[in-house]
């Protein structure tokens, strides 16, 4: 029995897959892969994304392979690529591109980035298909160890033990 082919509409938790380790002289690299194919998406442009990004050490070059998938066969899609501030393009890089929808169904985009900041950064990909809508995707790119730095507020507990995140209000107090 092959793995479950009836992909869940929504996965509660699923992990990104990695390719096998690829050894080069003095470096260790692997690929972070992801895909939205068969996953539920909120209303928007009829386009999916698959990608693989090369996890490398800080200062090295990470190759990014993105493929946009769409069954639309007329018009075009406007794609904007926005790397995080910690990422710098290497070589030819176009932040905006218009891709004609020629019916091939698959539209690859490749570029390279580097970063001296250790951790997982992101490349934002925005696809505008006009009246068909848009899609926004966030592609992870890892340099060295370390995952995403999540922004978290301190946790507190209520008197009955529930976890809460406390925001402080703008408050006005006055006599009635």
């Amino acid at each position, binding site marked *: 029995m092959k793995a479950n082919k009836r992909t869940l509409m929504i996965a509660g*938790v699923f992990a990104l897959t990695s390719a096998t380790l690829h050894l080069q002289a003095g470096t260790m690299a692997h690929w972070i892969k992801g895909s939205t194919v068969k*996953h539920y*998406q909120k209303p928007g442009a009829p386009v999916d994304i698959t990608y693989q990004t090369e996890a490398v050490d800080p200062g090295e070059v990470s190759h990014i392979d993105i493929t946009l998938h769409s069954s639309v066969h007329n018009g075009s899609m406007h794609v904007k690529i926005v790397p995080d501030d910690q990422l710098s393009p290497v070589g030819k890089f176009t932040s905006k591109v218009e891709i004609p929808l020629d019916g091939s169904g698959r539209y690859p985009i490749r570029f390279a980035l580097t970063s001296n900041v250790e951790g997982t950064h992101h490349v934002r990909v925005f696809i505008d298909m006009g009246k068909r809508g848009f899609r926004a995707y*966030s592609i992870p790119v890892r340099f060295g160890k370390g995952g*995403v730095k999540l922004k978290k507020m301190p946790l507190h507990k209520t008197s009955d033990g529930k976890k809460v995140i406390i925001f402080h209000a703008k*408050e006005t107090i*006055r006599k009635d």
Partner: protein
Amino acid sequence: MRLRMLLGSMSLAAAVVLSGCGGGGSGTDNPGSSTGNNNGSVNNRGSGGNNTGNNDGSTDNSGNGGNDNTGNSQGGSSDTNQKVSLSGHITYDRVPPKSDYNGLDYANTEQRPAREVVVELLDASDNVLATTTTDEEGYYRFEDITANTQVKVRVLASLHRDGSPSWDVNVTDNTNGDALYVLDGSLASVGTSDSVRDLDASSGWDGSDYTGPRIAAPFAILDTIDSAIHKVLTADSTLHFPPLAVHWSINNRPEQGDIAQGQIGTSYYFNGNLYILGDKDDDTDEYDNHVIAHEWGHYYEDKFSRSDSIGGSHGEGDLLDIRVAFGEGWGNAFSAMALDDPHYFDTYGDKQSDGYLMDIESDVSHDNPGWFSETSIQRILYDLYDSHDDGQDHLSLGFGPIHDMMTDAEKNAHAFTSLFTFITALKSYDSTDADAIDAIVSSENIATINDIFGTGRSNHSDDYPYHDLTVGESTSIHTYTTYGTYNKLGNHQFVTFHVDTAGSYTVTVQQTNGSDSDPDFELVRVDSYNHVGTSDDSASGVESKSFHLDAGDYILDVSDYQNIDDAHFDVTVDAN
């Protein structure tokens, strides 16, 4: 008509006897105007910092001596028999879309009431003295508080109502232990006279970026859900809404992966949980209320109706599996009904400065109208609902009949949920509207719908997905990828058959134009809507499995895992 919330839940404490009352503006309590002497009023406006305040004698809430923050009233009256009330207004920053819906309009942020949210009164040790809820204008009230008690007001990102109707909705941070968001006022003495504490949840926007805590977001989400709940209550005022956990975080990104890391992929509903995007400069959804209402519409389908949608990506112009088309058309239409606004918008991008608009009502010139189009279905459903006559639409059913259909006929349909099942049921509900319903449907290039299988298609008749099968005989079908893969028209074919006698039967799907496909199928008994089984082996060109089947009606959902362009199959169901 909105159900008016007059009473929140009540709890008794040793020092305080309280009643929760959200009736702001009634009686002598009118926080909107200052009727008392404002000398000595305390203004604790902060910007997300610690607002526990500093009442060390420099301000005077009561007209007596100053109060410290340890609960002692220095110089003030300490008569434990004296009772005072505390009331106020809870608001949040609502950032609207720009007039062209191309992004969020921070410059026109407005304060909106936090409706029907849970409010707690806490003592200096954070013990809950009393609980209430705000009314539909965002006002709350606590009565009979012992004078000079040190208290603070806490607003939970929670909608909660017991009784009939009832609901329980909480907004938590899925990247931080699923902790509940709360909004705290400062700890201060209630003094010896009635007082007012207004709390506002700010957006966190400083004019050019989010630099402060985005406190308003959970309350903006709740406000949209409150609207959705009340829309449904117009059809059934005693409904019990099952608990809904809403997960929003500033870390929630459009990246597939670990929900606890914010990798939620998209805003979506699944199994009692709503996940909402929140990473700035990506695709935030807390102010995109149609997005939230759309996903809440899937919660509604899950808890009160039935959806056979297989999900996947979808968009305007797609020729979709009929189940997906209805599910997504429903979500879009419901968002417009819930908000009484057909302008579905979704903002995104750097500084949230881009956006997309879909006019549920007026988007008449869309690609590929038909029974497979979510855009067609959303227009039909909204036209059935709304009070605006346009084109072929001369019906104004309101939500009641739609709710009746969704919770009965659609829920128990003996075919896959689709426009066919819904319209058939609606026309049976009130046959006097049948012609008007047909007219609305026909405006989307859809021939009259007369049964739950939608027989008699003229538009894209070759793509009609249902096929009849007699046990012991075979029927020919084909799956294809003309319009895309996974959830598009043609990817799945539905074979209906009837079993007269309970027993063991073998279902076989055999490719007849080669052997490069990998057919799979799911078997559903539709007269009682049970999922009987799945067969998805890796064998090329054939799929076969035996089942014990009771007498009844069944549907086989056949697809090709290999997604070859055009796979032809013979389908048989034989008694063993």
